[in-house]
């Protein structure tokens, strides 16, 4: 199934060159979880990162469905 991963700001360096505006499409096996999808990229997976599914706070073991977007950014005070 096709899903999308979006990495924001400094995390974009971990994306392959075909990514556009920080978004890359991935073909992943059914049952792939949020955690499995995001672990394909070289970013910290501890509390240094915020990872959301379709913009929502979810358990990292949530299985993905076709068309989902997983987004990650560095946890840092800003704004």
């Amino acid at each position, binding site marked *: 199934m096709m899903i999308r991963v*979006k990495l*924001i*700001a*400094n995390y*974009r*360096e971990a994306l392959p060159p075909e990514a556009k*505006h*920080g978004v890359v499409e991935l073909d992943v096996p059914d049952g792939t979880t949020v955690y499995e999808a995001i672990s394909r990229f070289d970013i910290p997976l501890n*509390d240094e*990162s*915020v990872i*959301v599914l*379709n*913009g*929502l*706070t979810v358990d990292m073991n949530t299985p993905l469905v076709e068309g989902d977007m997983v*987004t990650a*950014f*560095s*946890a*840092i*005070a*800003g*704004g």
Partner: protein
Amino acid sequence: MYGWHLRILRVNLTTHKVTTEDVDPKIARDYLGGRGWAIHYLYKEMDPMTDPLSPENKLIFATGPLTATPAPTGNRYMVVTKSPLTGALAHSNSGGEFPTWMKRTGFDMFIFEGKSPEPVYLFVNEDQVEVRSAAHVWGKDVHETTDILKAETSADARVACIGPAGENLALMAAIMNDKHRAAARSGVGAVMGSKNLKAVVAMGNKNPPLHDPEGMRALSVDTSKNVGADVKKGSNMRIYGTSYVPQVTNTLGILPTRNFLQGTFEHVNNIDGDALKNQYLIRHTPCYRCPLSCGRLTEVPDGKYKGKGEGPEYETISSLGTGCGVSDLAALLKANYLCNEYGMDTITTGMTIAAAMEMYEKGYIPESVIGQPLKFGDHDAMIEMIKLMAYMEGFGKDLAMGSYRLAEKYGHPEIAVTTRKQEFPGYDPRGSQGMGLLYATSNKGASHMEGDVAYEEVFGVPVKENPLTTEGKPELVKHFEDSFALMDSSGLCVFVAIRYAFNKDRMILPERLAEMMNLSTGAGYTPEEALKAAERVYNLERMFLLKAGSTEDTLPHRMLHEPLPDGPAKGKVVELDKMLPEFYKVRGWDEKGWPTKEKLMELGLPM
């Protein structure tokens, strides 16, 4: 004592008489400094019902015990007064260099009273204090004024001043320092303008003596190293400043778009941190002694938006940009530069124009009144409106009163997205419930800087909170409000102070911040005492607010009754009624939101 000079400069602008006074060391300790000292004096000396633009209002510039010390980011001051925009309290924070130079005059705080019969500026070089004519700079913008006053005083001096917006009493007027830094919110620049005070020019060599200079140096080096390690790893704050945030808030569906009619912006890629970095960034510009250096000098080199300056910050992108539906980055930069030159808060400026755009599109304000079309996304119209506001010309007179008064005047108060008549910053609280509680209860009207729980709800610092839930938010908001009162009183910038104020267990003890204060002052605060003092400051501000008649903790119509139509928070409104009663309990306030006698006694505050 150390850290503080324990000296105040009082300037009567009516008579041009200048006096100095000492600060009681017990008051100094109990109220921390900066924001805390300022509210102590304001509450003691001024009737909260005072007309904000009358000579009776006082305007206070206050540094903290860490300002002008080696503490990294010890470069802040607070401007505290009664706000003409909100009718409540104003406390606006700024960094850059001026605050450090101000403290080096040997005074912690300047209090301005009365009203000068003609335009003046204050020059302070340690004990040489002069109220001088400002006739030659009245009418000039912030950049020109700064250059002229430095040229006629000293290249070693630093300048805080107002631009045309402050002179003309626009209610979103800021006080700018070092040209690009702003004590922006709540119309503090209009108060300065109402006093005919164009600028304050400060210099001197009186660094505050430190209780433990060696210890302070060691802790400062350690903190800088800590920040440096983050920067090395590729900190977003260094690379992008706050301009990386639109992508974050857009992802969560809380990016204010078209006056909060939406929570996501379809053109966000045009105006995000990468677009800015790739097209217009020249270099990073730190405030004094800051290892993070989040400021950015940018330039639009040619064309009709040609200009150069600092910014934009996230809050400018979310107001003058997405708030107005504007996706042209060069035009947005121009709007930002103009606000800095005229001396205007970009949040209130942008969101007031956004409200006018919505009212124009809905037919509530006719084109004949505005003088031209004013659609969302029309960046040239936006730039024109900024000029009209700064100079109070035509429709600019209506705009310069802020969105609340504008919407009310044209019969549609439901359009204004404000609390206590102040415009919302860049987090739609329908998708960030804790921010909703914060905006509703903030002592200065809607503001993220009052206790930015977006750190947890949005940025995951120090821990990630679900932004859509209400459970635990009253405690969270209280804790952030008190922590921000502590940071604002200390003289540090929150972007860095937050690293020592918080720990992963929800930072119950701001150990490092208290330690830093002790090394500076020798006051021997325990972390609990420092936080208690911050709570004292917060409650005293609350009393000022209530006695000024601003007693209603609520949110505007859109936030309570119009569900977000798009994005991850679709269908949500702010569930304020689920949080507010609990918040009052957590605060030790009665069911109407007044601090109880017991709470006031516990904090040692007057009844």
